[in-house]
């Protein structure tokens, strides 16, 4: 499982990095989204990968078998903040597009 998850994280990171290095604002925002998926999974993963364990307290199940709730809480916060910043970046790229007339990240008007 770890291998699959790690590979998935790596691939999303790679794709995200590639995209945020592109010149178009839309590519950047998509790249940031991919990166935040990767990072969220990463945070989640550091708590140890456990399948098929109860995610909430259940009587009679020893606590040690439960999934680590801390990374989950962190991911939740990260998701929310990621959502907020994505929205913000979107609006800023729109504003930039409106003011410069182009969707280039530097406001340049080249066809690349």
């Amino acid at each position, binding site marked *: 499982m770890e291998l699959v998850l790690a590979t998935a994280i790596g691939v999303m990171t790679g794709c995200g990095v590639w995209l*945020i290095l592109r010149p178009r*604002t839309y590519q*950047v925002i998509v790249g*940031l989204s991919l*990166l*935040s998926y990767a*990072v969220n999974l*990463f*945070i989640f*993963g*550091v*708590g140890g990968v456990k399948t098929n364990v109860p995610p909430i307290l259940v009587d009679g199940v020893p606590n040690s078998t439960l999934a680590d709730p*801390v*990374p989950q809480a*962190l991911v939740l*916060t*990260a998701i929310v*903040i990621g959502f*907020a*910043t994505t929205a*913000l*970046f979107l609006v*800023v*790229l729109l*504003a*930039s597009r409106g*003011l*410069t007339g182009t969707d280039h*990240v*530097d*406001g340049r008007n080249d066809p690349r």
Partner: protein
Amino acid sequence: MSGWTHHLIIAPILVPLVVAALLLFFDERQRVVKAMISLASTLILVAVSLALLRIESGPNDFDGVYLLGNWAAPFGIVLVLDALSALMLLLAALLSVAALVFSLARWHAVGAHFHTMFQLLLVGLNGAFLTGDLFNLFVFFEVMLAASYGLLLHGSGPLRVKAGMHYIAVNLAAALLFLIGVSLIYGTAGTLNMADLAARIPDIEPDRRMLMEAGAGVLGIAFLIKAGMWPLCFWLPTAYSAASAPVAGIFAIMSKLGIYIILRLTMLLFGEGPSAGFGADVLLYGGIATLIFGTVGVLASQALGRLAGFSVLVSSGTLLMVLGINDGAISSGALLYLVSSTLTISAFFMLIELVERGQDAGAIVLAVTMEAYGDADDDEPEEGDGVTMPGTMAILGICFAACGILLSGLPPLSGFIAKFAMLSAMMGTGAIGVPPTAAVWVLVTLVILSGIAALISMTRAGIRTFWSSLEGTVPRVLVIEIVPVMFLLFLTLALTVQAGPAMQYMDTTIRSLSNPRIYIDAVRNAAPVADYDGVSSTNAGSK
């Protein structure tokens, strides 16, 4: 726990937060009310941080650890007030008063929700200064950043939006690095509390510690982006110079937040123990590169705004270098330098707007956009509430000269005192008989060169601005705009005159930082409030 005064620790976060929320209930048209509430909040913050500083440096053994939610240390989030955080809080509060007063002349009116965002920026800053928890630090970092995005974009216009986009993109990337770093640290050390982490480091087995260090490295990059280390700093001059004047004025402390965190964490985590000295080289060389780049940029800047922006880099570079050396005496001087340069740069950013008014491209852009957008719900900036100044040019000139003197580290203002304090520790009486090493020579040369560059650049700019303009119209400057600038400059003067006590405070601060045990024990030994019935809080039901 000493009753109500103990809750004072959290006031720097709560006051602006509650005020920000309250401000949302007022219409944009009730601007005066909003401004007054906002101003009151910043004044309260000054009072609170003064009180905290007093208490902190006072004689009685103040318990500066605040257990949020009454959870014991590594489990809940703690706020920690020590000499360093108290100092930063005060600095932030002072800057905020100045910037806010400045904004009341016109800037607070050119866009929506200025005051709310301003207050939330303070929430973020103060929270970051106070928190003793890594992830909570992330959260407050984000609060601060989010507010800073809004404030940077405040007033809109192509320059701001472009700068804002770059700023946001880079900082979003930084936030991701932050998360990676924090989670790596949690995954390897099993804790998020800084003190607990510091205490755990010696017990972490090597394999895991390596990963922990990798996490710390990634985390460090996030902070270094904020602090503006070369080559992660290119956004900074652009963003700061594009921001409206009061915003840039308060931004002056944001890059210092990066420095603050690095200082805190390196002293706490890597001061001693198996990971001691981790990353010091990076800070040293990065600082050198930053200082060189900042200096070059200061020289190369035509626009005052960029000059000021690069001055931020110079200041950051200097501080990073000192952090890389990690010598107590030098660090004390560096703290003084931090305070002085923050005050200076803040004043300078606001001053620039006044000086350039009339020939200011930003104002023209603003005017154009205001006209083109012609939104009914957009309010014209109100001019004329307040009194314009007599002898404007003279006062502006004096302030400008003061900024120049401060930036280049010429005597007698605090810029000099601070540089002297650092240099003296490196090669003066602070290092009697120890011949300066090659590194020290490099540092000294760079510090001096950066001062020279500032001198050259500031005289060039000053002459161009004040003396060569062809019968330039005297800018319309309101009293409430120049007073904040003068206030900040006055603070540097006060810092100069009171250099002795100030330096003593810095010394104490650095001394307590270099003994992380104090911090660690304070946090780990802080006990939650006992229950009503006197039983400690391990009881079910209520706690």
